[in-house]
């Protein structure tokens, strides 16, 4: 378990006011799932401290997804925040048919898409934001992957969304298509497009995978 993950789990446990976190640290995966299920149940009963524990457990992945999809720190923060607020409001609808993280990611994707739709109506504002965000965002990637990460950020919106969900987060075309509200065939086509565009960009930069 990475240090970051360990710290996150610890923060989640402390938030949930559990004293026995050493036990949790010893066997993180199974305990994490058990705790997560308990936190979900408690959060569904309007326990905000349990929800904070869920937030601490999932924020990095949710924020990462939002950042990769928007390519903008401020937008990603807003989307992640909005996603968790939406998740809180819709918690009663979570039945456990999918993993909580998948459910949360779906909400986050919706949040990103919703904000982007709004952003079209606020074109000027977004253009201003875009001008201010030409600098690459910090994603914590290894040095040898930084070029790829930046190239992903420069992809056109549709191709970027599919690439992030499919190639980076490992969702299938069906899952990505469902999240994005597009056909699976479109998802495949967008991935193909993304791969071609990335290969072109990176070739120019002499990228070696």
């Amino acid at each position, binding site marked *: 378990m990475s240090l970051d993950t360990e710290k996150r789990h610890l923060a989640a446990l402390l938030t949930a006011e559990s004293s026995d976190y050493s036990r949790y640290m010893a066997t993180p995966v199974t305990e994490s799932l058990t705790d997560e299920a308990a936190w979900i149940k408690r959060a569904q009963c309007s326990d905000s401290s349990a929800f904070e524990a869920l937030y601490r457990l999932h924020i990095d992945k949710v924020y*990462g997804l939002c950042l990769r999809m928007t390519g903008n720190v401020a937008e990603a923060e807003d989307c992640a925040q909005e996603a*968790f*607020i939406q998740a809180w409001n819709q918690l009663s609808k979570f039945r456990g048919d999918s993993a909580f993280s998948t459910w949360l990611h779906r909400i986050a994707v919706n949040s990103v898409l919703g904000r982007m739709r709004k952003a079209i109506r606020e074109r000027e504002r977004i253009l201003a934001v875009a001008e201010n965000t030409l600098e690459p965002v910090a994603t914590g990637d290894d040095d040898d992957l930084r070029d790829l990460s930046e190239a992903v950020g420069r992809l056109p919106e549709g191709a970027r969304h599919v690439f992030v969900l499919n*190639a980076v987060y490992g969702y299938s075309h069906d899952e990505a298509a469902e999240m994005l509200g597009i056909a699976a065939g479109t998802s495949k086509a967008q991935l193909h497009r993304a791969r071609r565009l990335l*290969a072109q960009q990176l070739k120019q930069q002499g990228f070696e995978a």
Partner: protein
Amino acid sequence: MTEENTTKENMAEKNEDKLIAAARKLSTDISPGRDLWPGIAEAIAKPAPRRSWARLDGRTSMFAQAAAIVLLIGASSSLTYVIVKGQQQAPITVPSTAMIFEQTSFANRYSLGPGFEDAHSALANDLKIELARLSPEVRANVETNLKLIHGAIFEMNNALEQEPDNILLQKQLLRAYREELAFLRRVSGLTRNIMMRNDI
């Protein structure tokens, strides 16, 4: 397709596969630069936003008011009907008013059709006389209901002046007029029944 082209395509595909493999190594867990929890905590501490007519713009609020008034009228006039019916045993027939409204039109000038106008003025003229025959308690009840109906009609006409083409408001106004007419008929039928019984 030449052999050279095929080789180029194969190489391109190979590179793209490498690219996908590299993409899998990109971090999926990225910590935000600041703690987002305080903002979330503040938002979830407030009650969940419910779809409230009253919270929407003034137009919709007017809708809600009109709809609520019409519902109130329905309930209130039914109550009067029940009270009044309890006092009188003779059957009361309420004729259908559907035909009366066939020529109804809205927009800048409201017209409820000649049928309605005739029926309305005839019943309104009789009402004063017939009300005198009712007990003070029932009369007060009838007058309260009529005030309510007239208030609703006034409000809806005001709203329609601002939005003459609003179908929902038009329907609500029509319904209020129907209620008024039906109510007048009930009162009128009731007093006629009293008169008939007195005559006997």
